[in-house]
């Protein structure tokens, strides 16, 4: 990872360093702040152009918060988010900007390059707006409505697998999968470089989920998009991602190329998580590593490595020292004191 401020890799589009988002816990009569929920705590990652980074983890691990803090939908507590923006540059060549230093006006401009797809296809579409209104809203905000807008919207609709005559309909006239397609068309309206997908398929049925995943993959190639794909389903993330970051209680436990991470995990949490996934093969041997207990409480985390109370390789050191995210192999990062020393099993590829 580029640690000196200069990006080594030419293709990097977004770089996140030391990102923190703490939510205050208030208590007592005066609503005094009595502590913090460290939803995202010192997270580092990067996304290359045209690449999908999967952010995966159990509920409460901070994956959604991390996605939103990148966009400043949640104002980060600390950290740096650098993004190669096309929209903000005057020369026409992409230019590095630090998202946290931008003012409101500049941020709005950058939002032409970054958009978002949400989990709930019902809640994320205004029921009183037609498909045309929904998809042109981003264009309206950025003063890009012109005589060709309707044509543009029709093209987008066709691209995501809807028909031109759907343009005047309202969201309730569509099924869940179709609504998600409308959300995808909206996110494409301004021709972004990066789309943050927050659990885009978890509300969909299996057959519709496959259609949506294939669509996202096709769009990525056609528009050279980069995705941050936030999800809890390990098999979906494996399918769609080029690289995967596994999060646990606000921190990244491990990050590597998708195939590498699934076949040769270096963090005990990744190993246990993958072994827990029920596999659609009735003859598969059930060799699950059962993680005892529940996910640590981010408001009251255990000392040392956050995973140590559930880890089967735990040693004294883990209970005291917080492990840093280190590059163990080229492009393979893990936050474990014993990463590389343990003999961990992945899933066969």
């Amino acid at each position, binding site marked *: 990872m580029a640690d000196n401020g200069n990006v080594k890799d030419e293709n990097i589009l977004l770089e996140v360093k030391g990102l923190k988002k703490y939510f205050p816990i208030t208590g007592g009569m005066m609503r005094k702040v009595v502590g913090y929920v460290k939803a995202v705590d010192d997270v580092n990652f990067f996304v290359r152009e045209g690449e999908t980074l999967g952010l995966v983890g*159990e509920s409460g691990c901070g994956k959604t918060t991390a996605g939103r803090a990148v966009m400043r939908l949640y104002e980060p507590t600390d950290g740096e988010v650098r993004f190669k923006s096309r929209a903000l540059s005057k020369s026409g060549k992409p230019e590095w900007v630090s998202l946290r230093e931008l003012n409101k006006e500049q941020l709005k401009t950058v939002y032409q390059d970054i958009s978002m797809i949400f989990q709930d296809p019902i809640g994320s579409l205004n029921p009183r707006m037609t498909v045309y209104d929904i998809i042109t809203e981003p264009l309206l905000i950025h003063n890009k409505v012109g005589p060709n807008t309707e044509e543009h919207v029709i093209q987008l609709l066709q691209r995501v697998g809807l028909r031109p005559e759907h343009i005047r309909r309202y969201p309730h006239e569509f099924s869940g999968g179709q609504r998600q397609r409308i959300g995808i068309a909206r996110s494409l309206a301004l021709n972004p470089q990066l789309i943050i997908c927050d659990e885009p398929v978890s509300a969909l*049925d*299996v057959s*519709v989920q*496959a259609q949506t995943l*294939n669509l996202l993959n096709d769009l990525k190639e056609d528009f050279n998009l980069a995705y941050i794909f936030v999800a809890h389903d390990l098999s979906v993330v*494996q399918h769609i991602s080029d690289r995967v970051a596994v999060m646990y209680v606000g921190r990244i436990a491990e990050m590597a190329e998708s195939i590498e991470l699934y076949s040769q995990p270096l963090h005990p949490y990744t190993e246990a998580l993958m072994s827990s996934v029920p596999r659609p093969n*009735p003859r598969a041997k059930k060799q699950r590593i059962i*993680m005892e207990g529940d996910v640590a409480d981010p408001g009251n985390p255990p000392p040392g490595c956050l995973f140590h109370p559930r880890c089967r390789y735990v040693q004294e050191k883990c209970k005291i020292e917080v492990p840093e995210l280190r590059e163990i192999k080229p492009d393979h990062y893990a936050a474990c004191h014993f990463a590389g020393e343990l003999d961990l099993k992945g899933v066969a590829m």
Partner: protein
Amino acid sequence: MNEITDDVLVSIRDLRIRFDVRDGIVNAVDGANFTIRRGKTLGVIGESGCGKSMTAKAIMNMVPKPGIMTGEVTLYKRHVENGSQIVEEIRLDQLDKDGEEIRKIRGGTITMIFQEPMSSLTPVFSAGFHIMEAVKLHRFLPIESIGETMTRNIQKKRQVSLEEAREIAIDMLQKVGLPNAAQRVDSYPHQLSGGQRQRVMIAIALSTHPDLLIADEPTTALDVSIEAQILDLMRELQETVDMAILFITHNMGVIAEMADEMVVMYMGKEVEEGSVIDIFENPKHPYTRLLLASIPEIGEKKRELATIKGMTPSPFDLPTGCVFHPRCPDFMPGKCDVVKPLLATVAKNQNARCLMYDPCWPDTAEAQAIKAKA
């Protein structure tokens, strides 16, 4: 799978559930036939709206208004009397919905766990109270055996007392792996995590020694690591108490791990049934085949996922002939859109409902004429 053998616990014959609503008639379940065997797990899989949860409700005779249920749901209940076993046949569908008899079966012989563990527990009562309530209603302890003095071995039974119920509750919570069960018995649902709540639900369901546990998407709302814990727990408990499980889910992985036999449902109809291994390795119906191909599998890199084109039809406007024909890759024009296929045996212990297989053609002159034409 029609013969009634000794190991049959519940048999469902031609079950239909119809809702007469303003926009028309919805056939939520349209002729389901299957058998739940003692001590085995039957998985029911299907997408939302296919009628899998409604089938479960029908077994408990809990079809909500204005639903109308027809068909047969028979429970074969085993008793030990006179030292020998007798099997009592109870037609669940004919029992009074609010009657004494069905209320003994619900929560006693047949219990249920639901998807959402938060809303299935009352927030104002403790975990222990929930279990004690079930135990007090459905569990009876023998007080004396008159069998020694007479030829007939009759046991008098009484309800459990409050103290005993509490002991049973603590014991159950221990069995389902809740740490500090003796203290946790007084915890309220909001003090427990999602996985712990689901454990409490399982404790309630198992505290009455049921013959059948209906699990309606029990792990869908849980994280993977907790899901693994719960699935392992259910399997362990099933081995120790000899109960059957009807496992309803949309997750192929879960069904592959849990079930012995499975039923695939589509738009209120079973499209395929058989043993889990047969269906996963050799699916007969195009829908099953596509469903299996459309899931991304961990540890396997697929370039493109198979998809089922289109979407599930509106229940008010079902396609003619085979309900799956507009989405089917093997659609045969002139046949599939005209003839309604029957569920028939297409391979050893494997039934499917598809006109690709000869036995599925109905035995009417009309259908046979269409069949002969091609």
